[in-house]
């Protein structure tokens, strides 16, 4: 009995962590390159809406995922345009993107469906293709295909940051853009690539929310998951594997509160359990070292042709 509850919690943790891990890995590129992306929630909700809308009209989930990813990328490129290209205020821009994306998605949702959620669409809760795998096939097919994409992305992110020249260049651009430019690297192009990659990945996380976890788009469905992703990166000190581990902690408490709410034998108020991930994040900021952030230069690096 206890063992089965543990398995349920672990399975549900795996499912609930998928969007946080994907978004956190995307934001890791951003932070490594010296860009604070407070607009993660906006990118995620744009991805969720784009995916649900496209799937509703075409009936093809993979096309939906593609549009969701692109929608996140568009929001990411807006952030990139304002901060990297124009040297704007990145925190203000990120906050604006959150409000703008939340507003536009609900606005369009109401205009098209006359409600703050879309009707039920095709989903991708399971991976039937893996059912044929011997012994563990039944277990493997219970996860969404995006879960497997997440595993691949985690590996790629680790490889890029630890083993490639590009990874080194991203770190260099983030810590000292002037020196990096002197070394002959196109600082702005690399920063643009990092922010847009972050947008694409966070859009994928959003597509998972509306297609892999729920079969529709609902207003405000990200509920601060983008923020949790950014905090996971901060706690994981911008290292891919540590970031994934931090995101798993958030996922565990998300799964735990869901179980407690379903069982409700403990009679705890749901708000108390819902606040656990946030309280843990506050404690992590309180007791964790903030030194690793000091190495990142979060000031805009403005092109010399805009002299102001």
């Amino acid at each position: 009995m206890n063992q089965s509850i543990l398995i349920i919690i672990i399975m549900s943790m795996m499912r609930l962590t998928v969007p946080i891990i994907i978004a956190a890995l995307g934001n890791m590129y951003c932070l490594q390159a010296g860009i604070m992306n407070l607009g993660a929630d906006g990118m995620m909700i744009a991805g969720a809406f784009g995916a649900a809308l496209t799937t509703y009209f075409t009936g093809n989930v993979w096309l939906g995922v593609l549009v969701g990813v692109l929608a996140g990328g568009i929001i990411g490129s807006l952030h990139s345009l304002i901060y990297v290209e124009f040297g704007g205020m990145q925190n203000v821009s990120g906050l604006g993107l959150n409000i703008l994306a939340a507003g536009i998605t609900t606005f369009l949702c109401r205009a098209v469906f006359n409600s703050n959620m879309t009707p039920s669409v095709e989903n991708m809760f399971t991976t039937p293709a893996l059912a044929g795998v011997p012994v563990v096939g039944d277990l493997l097919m219970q996860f969404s295909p995006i879960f497997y994409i997440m595993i691949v992305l985690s590996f790629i992110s680790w490889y890029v940051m630890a083993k490639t020249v590009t990874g080194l260049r991203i770190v260099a651009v983030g810590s000292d853009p002037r020196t990096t430019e002197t070394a002959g690297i196109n600082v702005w192009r690399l920063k643009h690539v990092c922010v847009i990659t972050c947008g694409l990945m966070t859009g994928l996380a959003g597509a998972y929310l509306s297609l892999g976890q729920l079969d529709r788009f609902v207003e405000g469905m990200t509920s601060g998951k983008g923020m949790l992703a950014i905090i996971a990166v901060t706690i994981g000190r911008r290292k891919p594997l540590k970031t994934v581990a931090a995101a798993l902690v958030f996922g565990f408490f998300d799964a735990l509160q869901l179980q407690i709410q379903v069982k409700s034998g403990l009679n705890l108020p749901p708000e108390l359990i819902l606040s656990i991930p946030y309280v843990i994040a506050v404690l992590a900021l309180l007791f964790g070292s903030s030194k690793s952030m000091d190495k990142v230069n979060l000031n805009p690096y403005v092109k010399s042709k805009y002299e102001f």
Partner: protein
Amino acid sequence: MRNKLKGISIVSIMTPVVIIAATMLTTSALIMTTGANPLNAYYYLLTGVFSNIIDTINRTIPIAFTAFAVALGLKAGLFNIGLESQFLMGALAGAATGAFITGVPAIVHVPLCLLVGMLSGMLYALPAAAMFVGKGANLLVLQLLFNSIGTLICTYFIAGPFAGENPSVAATPRIQATAQLPNLITGPNKLSISILFVMFTAFALWFYLNKTTSGYQLRTVGDNADAARYAGINVKKYHFGVLLVGGALAGLAGALDVTGNFYRMYGNYSPGYGFDGIPIAMLVNGNPLGMVIGAVIFGALRVGSVSMQTKAGVPVEIVKVIQGVLIMLISAQHFIRFLVGKYIKKGERNGKT
């Protein structure tokens, strides 16, 4: 020299104008995608505002207070986004004090509600402020976390310990008659004396920032924290103080809204007042009179958008879109200023030759 001065002033006036015009254009394009006529929609927006002037003023009050709090932060070089939950804490504490303390004359009860609300907002700002000043933790991340926690705390209290007489509605009980703010006007809608608090705070803010030594030091901290530190100004003290006073202002706004307008607190109380203050304060660069005007415009948008939805079929979320576009453009305002300046210079050169 005179030309240069003139050029600078034209740029400072033109930049907000360009930003607002670009926002209107973007919003109109979005309204057109829904098949509605933007001019028609704006017409219903205005008629909605003018038929509910008092309601608009009531909406203006909390927005003005959060704008003041944001402006105080900006002047000290901080970006304060924790006001949303501090406003809610003030409203919750004000509603509880107003409803559960009985048998006190109004002359004591009303100030008590406001004071408790103010202190709650300030106390709720304390942990994030202390962690930012003491440990150098990321203020924005902290404040967003505390916003999420604060919303949950309020939901818990409204549904649990402070639940009202009707269990099917998530709201606190109606506050006692002794806790209600006196009204200036009672018909057709009521307008409480909270508008006087806004005027007084606007004046006090202007006086503090421009006429006192402490205000001057605060602005120095915001302009150049390193220079301020070398000049012997305690930068941390100002950062800490600005965050706490911001919390107190937001808490006071919450208590005023409860005791002067709704007489109880209900679920999802704030429609985003804490974030409304940010674009307003940034657009007018913390000028108190400008912020009051900006707050009236934002209050009008909130009131007018309801009639826009019912009569022109444009979803109320258009307010969020307008705010989002406005904040995005404000974040790039240095660049827009640069472009405007370049354009004006070019025009002058063409005019001379």
